[in-house]
């Protein structure tokens, strides 16, 4: 294991769309050790309130030691992070959890919905950087509307990837769900689908993959206190009964291992 607790400098803060923020942090140790699908825990303010760190999947890393997170402001913790100024130091814990297992054989299809797009960029760049993964992965990204989706697509295009888009309101790409786009692609068992997004989206993708005999990995989101397997607060129900823990057994799971009926 190589996990770090570091005070790192915020070098860039961008408002990507309304309430959607991307932070760039100078975190060389964590960036170097990180794998796609892993996450960091960030203290959103000094002091005792909010008490707990917040988990964020790693959006992107660079060889210069930068690490990016992408999030939507949904509460006080994310609000405080969004207000952080460049030059401020943030306490990071990471990289944490088990990320995606990159299959070397066959083709890859990456499906990200909403803020579930965050880990997909890191995954896509890893696929693109390393020749052993063969053909360029197919990428399907979905969001509520054009405003939220378009700013995130260019990073994938800059990797030389073609992006299929879907929006809830039809303002960009397919009018509807990413699963509609995935269905139309008619992919077969030579594919692995990597997915992150809202639970109903991942459930739909899981069921589609199950039907078509396609291997599927999903990255789940839960509340978390510690992020490192100590508090056991991030229970994820398993198909076989009992629970796994999103922070240490995941956040990436084989879709077939999870209980989706809840």
């Amino acid at each position, binding site marked *: 294991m190589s996990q770090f607790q570091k005070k790192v400098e915020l070098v860039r803060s961008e408002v990507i769309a309304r309430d959607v923020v991307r932070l760039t942090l100078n975190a060389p140790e964590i960036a170097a050790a990180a794998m796609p699908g892993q996450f960091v825990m960030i203290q959103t303010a000094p002091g005792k309130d909010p008490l707990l760190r917040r988990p964020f999947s790693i959006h992107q890393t660079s060889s210069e030691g930068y690490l990016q997170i992408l999030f939507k402001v949904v509460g006080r913790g994310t609000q405080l992070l969004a207000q952080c100024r460049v030059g401020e130091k943030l306490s990071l*814990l990471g990289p944490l959890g088990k990320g995606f297992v990159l299959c070397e054989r066959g083709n890859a299809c990456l499906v990200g919905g909403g803020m579930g797009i965050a880990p997909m960029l890191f995954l896509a760049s890893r696929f693109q950087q390393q020749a052993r993964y063969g053909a360029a992965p197919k990428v399907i990204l979905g969001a509520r509307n054009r405003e939220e989706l378009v700013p995130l697509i260019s990073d994938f295009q800059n990797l030389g990837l073609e992006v299929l888009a879907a929006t809830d309101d039809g303002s960009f790409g397919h009018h509807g769900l990413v699963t509609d786009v995935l269905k139309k692609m008619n992919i077969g068992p030579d594919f692995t689908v990597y997915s992150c997004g809202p639970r109903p989206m991942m459930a739909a993708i899981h069921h589609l993959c199950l039907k078509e005999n396609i291997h599927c990995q999903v990255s789940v989101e839960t509340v978390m206190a510690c992020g490192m397997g100590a508090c056991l607060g991030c*229970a994820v129900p398993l198909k076989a*009964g009992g629970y796994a823990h999103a922070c240490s057994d995941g956040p990436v799971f084989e879709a077939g291992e999870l209980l989706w009926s809840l």
Partner: protein
Amino acid sequence: MEPVIMNRGEVDLRVAIGSLELQNPVMTASGTFGYAREFEDFVDLRRLGAVVVKGISIAPRAGNPPPRIVETACGMLNAIGLENVGVDRFISEKMPYLSALGVPVIVNILGDCVEEYSRIAERLAQVEGVAAIEVNISCPNVKKGGVAFGADPKMAASVTSAVKQSCRVPVIVKLSPNVTDVTVMAKAVQDAGADAVSLINTLIGMAIDLRSRRPRLANIFGGLSGPAIKPVALRMVYQVAQAVTIPIIGIGGIATTEDAMEFMLAGASAVQVGTANFVNPRASEDVVDGIAAYVREQQLGSVRDLIGALLVG
């Protein structure tokens, strides 16, 4: 405690919990530190006074359905449901690493009935490296209609004496704050043979999501921990210190050196760092450093000079 010659710059941080001597008064609280290995990248585990591991039952427990935790003002509620690997897997999978650490390992135990507690204690008594047992009496007694052992002095005493008879290592009884008078419980377990008490366990609370009109925890109720509970914990430690003669281990919202030393002034011989481990995984070691610096700066003969040294009146 035998005096020792300290090297230049060294300070005497040793404390005793019954027959168990600790190199310093800082432990980790059960359920907040996993089985210690989870923290090895962040903490020099050998520097801790003791490691208290996640509560163990006879059989593995899956725990409660999610959501299991929710953040509250300066604290958190948890309803993990005592998820653990069970005593057999604990001994075979977790103990080898723990006993090789070279710090005292205190095993927290829990059960549904008195017999379960004594069976776990018997199993652990045969295991090398178990320095002490901490008994979680906040669990419901299934045979007595689900009333918590820790809410009834007779039941608390019967669990304590059963565990005492089942093992030779020191027995620490972890008291519940969810009682009318914590000193009654402390005296009851002292009379039943407890070597020490630790307090407080979490305070029962709840949180509601107004939008969905639902409880925020699947279990409805959860245990409140973190800085929010520190004043309650300090008060109870102080009260218990006036009521019993056995050592007290202070728990409840301890995140810093100052917190730890306040508990010692109130009468605690040692402390446990709990929820703070989730925020700062190095919190326990930071407190060890801080106490050492304080003892050095104040030129105290020993950290033991702080125990119960509160000036009142």
